[in-house]
């Protein structure tokens, strides 16, 4: 929101300066205090105001940072632009085009000249293919755990009752962790010396502990302590989460914002529930589907062509099958879309859903649409799949102006056991 502009000279291109002591006049509240205050608002009969904002630093994959910060909006009566029907663009990816905000410029070009193009795919992750599917290298991992804690504790998201028990998978690794006297692979010098001294003390060969002469030590071969290879239990990640996001042209703006926010929260909540033992896979789709390597790409890539939902489900099913994921993991799939689908009858999507539901623990579909009556809602309704397989599939419908509380309620709907 607009604060009075400070009158001054801006500067952007210099390195950060040192950090000073907090000045006397600032009495900052801690995040805990602020969240506590926010909780009190509900008790006082007012809606909560704290939202969780994200700051993203663009960069190469593996060096990006996603930082979670508390944020809030001061609501006032403000003017806004009249929504234009072109916004969101043509759903089939055809010739129509959406328009962004007008601005100024300078140069010698003529009216109608193209000044330049900017990829809607942010930094251009095209062609990098599927990676490990984790978010390693992103600061989000550590932050997500904290966010999950906040979501669980402050926003009363459910705790999974059987976390870490259901179909838990363990594997073994081998490491030089066992100790063995007499022989082995790696001499543990400290432990060996300790044993030699013990032996020599027992034999009375150390009369004065203040003046030890190591050359007089008697060394028993059994005093030598070695480390040997041993089988160690390694707890593998227990949850595999597929995040599927519709990034077709019609998703431009608030729907994308809502879906990415909600998916970030779900990811964080699962990270907390499974104590970080969560592996995430990210799938984007318009009329084709592709896997992207990390949350950063998933979050940033935007607006492309038309929509064909079955493609995305088919890709997830393929991944589950080829990597035999179902036997090792609790699989969760979360899909965010505006409900538009090239195939209004949804035969292909329903067919893929059927295959998917045999493998997953829960499929949560978030439909962000204020108009209602979308293709996807139609065929899910007709198939009665939401009622008959309620344990496995949930649909949460959100408006395009949904507040954070509604987004969190949506998560509760999608993950609850009821």
């Amino acid at each position, binding site marked *: 929101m607009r604060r*009075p502009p*400070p*009158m*001054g*000279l801006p*500067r952007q291109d210099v*390195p*950060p300066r040192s950090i*000073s002591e907090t*000045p006397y006049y*600032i009495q*900052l509240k801690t*995040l805990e205090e*602020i969240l506590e*205050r926010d909780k009190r608002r509900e008790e*006082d009969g*007012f*809606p909560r105001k704290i939202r969780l*904002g994200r*700051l993203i*630093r663009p960069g190469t994959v593996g060096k990006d940072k996603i930082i979670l910060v*508390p*944020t*809030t*909006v*001061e*609501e*006032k*009566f*403000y*003017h*806004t632009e*009249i*929504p234009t*029907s072109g916004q969101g*663009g*043509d759903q089939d990816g*055809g010739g129509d*085009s*959406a*328009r*962004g905000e007008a*601005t*100024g*410029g*300078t140069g010698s*070009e*003529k*009216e109608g*000249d*193209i000044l*330049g*193009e*900017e*990829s*809607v795919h942010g930094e251009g992750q095209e062609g990098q293919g599927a990676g490990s599917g984790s978010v390693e290298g992103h600061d989000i991992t550590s932050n997500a755990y904290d966010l999950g804690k906040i979501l669980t504790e402050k926003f009363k998201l459910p705790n999974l009752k059987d976390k870490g028990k259901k179909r838990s998978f363990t594997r073994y690794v081998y490491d030089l962790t066992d100790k063995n006297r007499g022989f082995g692979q790696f001499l543990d010098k400290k432990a060996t010396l300790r044993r030699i001294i013990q032996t020599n003390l027992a034999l009375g060969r150390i009369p004065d502990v203040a003046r030890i002469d190591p050359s007089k030590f008697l060394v028993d071969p059994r005093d030598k302590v070695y480390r040997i290879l041993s089988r160690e239990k390694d707890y593998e990640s227990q949850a595999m989460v597929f995040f599927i996001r519709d990034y077709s042209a019609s998703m*431009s703006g608030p729907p994308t914002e809502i879906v990415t926010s909600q998916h970030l929260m779900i990811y964080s909540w699962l990270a907390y529930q499974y104590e970080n033992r969560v592996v995430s896979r990210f799938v984007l789709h318009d009329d084709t589907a592709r896997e992207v390597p990390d949350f950063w790409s998933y979050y940033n890539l935007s*607006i*492309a*062509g038309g929509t064909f939902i079955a493609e995305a489900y088919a890709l997830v099913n393929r991944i589950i099958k080829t990597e035999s994921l179902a036997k090792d993991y609790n699989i969760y799939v979360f899909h965010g879309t505006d409900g538009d689908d090239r195939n209004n009858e949804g035969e292909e999507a329903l067919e893929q859903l059927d295959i998917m539901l045999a493998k997953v623990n829960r499929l949560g579909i978030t439909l962000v649409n204020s108009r209602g009556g979308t293709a996807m809602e139609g065929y899910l309704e007709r198939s009665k799949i939401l009622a008959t397989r309620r344990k496995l599939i949930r649909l949460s419908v959100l408006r395009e102006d949904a507040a954070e509380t509604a987004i969190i309620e949506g998560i509760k709907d999608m993950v609850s056991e009821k």
Partner: protein
Amino acid sequence: MKLIDQGVKRIMEECKLRARDAGLSFDDESLEYIVTNQDMLELAPRSMIPTLYDYWVNDIRIIMEKEKYKLYPTNPYETVINTRPPISFYNDNNPDWLNVMIFYHVLAHIDFFHNNVFFKNTWTDDFLGRARADKRLIARLRSEHGRWVDYVIEFARGIDNICGYYRELSTATEGRTSAWSRRMDFYFDVFLQKIKKAPHHEYLQNMKRYNELSRETPSIGESLFFSEVKTSYPEFDSLYERSVLKAEKWPSDLIEYLLQNSPFLNKEENKWMKSVLTIVRETALYFEPQRRDQIFNEGWASYWHERLYLKDDRISGHEVDFALVHAKVTSLPKIGINPYAIGMRLIDYVGGLAEKGRISYDYQRTRNIEKRKLFDQRTGKGTEFLFKLREEHCDFTLVNTYLDQEFVNRHGLFTVEKVLKPDKRAWQYIVKSRKAEDYKQMIIDSLWHPPHIVVDEGRSDEAWLYLVHRDEGKPLVASFIANTLLGAEFLWGGGVRLETTDMHFEKRGEGTEPYLVKKRLMYSMKDKKLERREL
């Protein structure tokens, strides 16, 4: 945060002498502090006022700014605030040559604050001191009423952008801008037309008589005229006084209306809330002129720092350094708007027009393009005109009056449209228009303009407060309406209705051009529940 040392202060004082010689005017006293980036981050959410009252939203912003700083470190050179004496903050790593440039920039801002008529209501006010007193009062109220003080601040801030800035300003500048007295306004506009419903010929007779008297005896023409009026209409004086009294009591804006009329706020146990509302309103009013003067104020400061710096002999050897910093601040971007750049160039352009005598009827009448190019009366009054300009204009009037095709052509300006091309999966930036009127409209659309929302007293009572939003071609942000009305409901102590206009584009069919659909809507907030219906 500490005061600058004596050496740097000496540089500043020398800058003051040179700036005064050039025609800038400001008080002798000023305070300069050295600050770190961290200080700046903590001050920015408080509008750079260190003594502003504590409020949790500012705390959140500080936390956010600090995290943002880790990702996008910034290092502003300086900031100046409109206080008495004016206070400016300087980054702790500025070299002396840079400080000379910055001091000139700051002095031009101070000159603008002190002389631009839109800042008139801040001229006699020590805002820093007032803010300190307000902060103490709010801290005391917080110790008595706890978090409810923050709710009242929040709800008052929800409507503080529709404060009656222009009404307050017109009261302050009355007599200065109008040669026409209020009594005359009342007589001709209200008394004759609305109360007496005088026929046209009588109205013209009155006008003629007034003109005669003021021509014959200019100094007492008006009083002679009203002594004649008194004989014809003995009741005029009492009616006029009653109208003045009513106008003075009439609240300038929604917060003032609530202060005077809210049944909830006027209950004995809630009267403390009125102090909070007053603080929020007055703080908002104080910052209003700054919001409306960014292009002009920054342009003015950049124009003067360039002029004065280049003449300053103390900085020889740093011309290239200066050129680099100055270009970064004031260059026109290929795509985007830089208020510093547009403001500085527009001021320079207007100064040039005045210098050549082109702000005149003669020039406007000249149609021949070659003659226009050669038109130069060498008035030598360019700078004098700029000082008058800086006294009387805000961003809107400056841009609306002086941004013309010649200016747009000179700097190669155009409006840019950002179009999504789904087939290419890319945004395209396209030169849309090189017409001055389009460029001007684009700038005007980006200026600060809060919605015009007033209380309809005829339809308000204790149970319902009725607000009306005038249609100015833009809808309100729909998602903000609920919480803002929730706050207004709390402060009124009853239901609140808001009449507004919803607008969107619809298509009649595939391939047709979208057309604008407007609907008058009413939002009602009662018992924290929002209803919306078409009127």
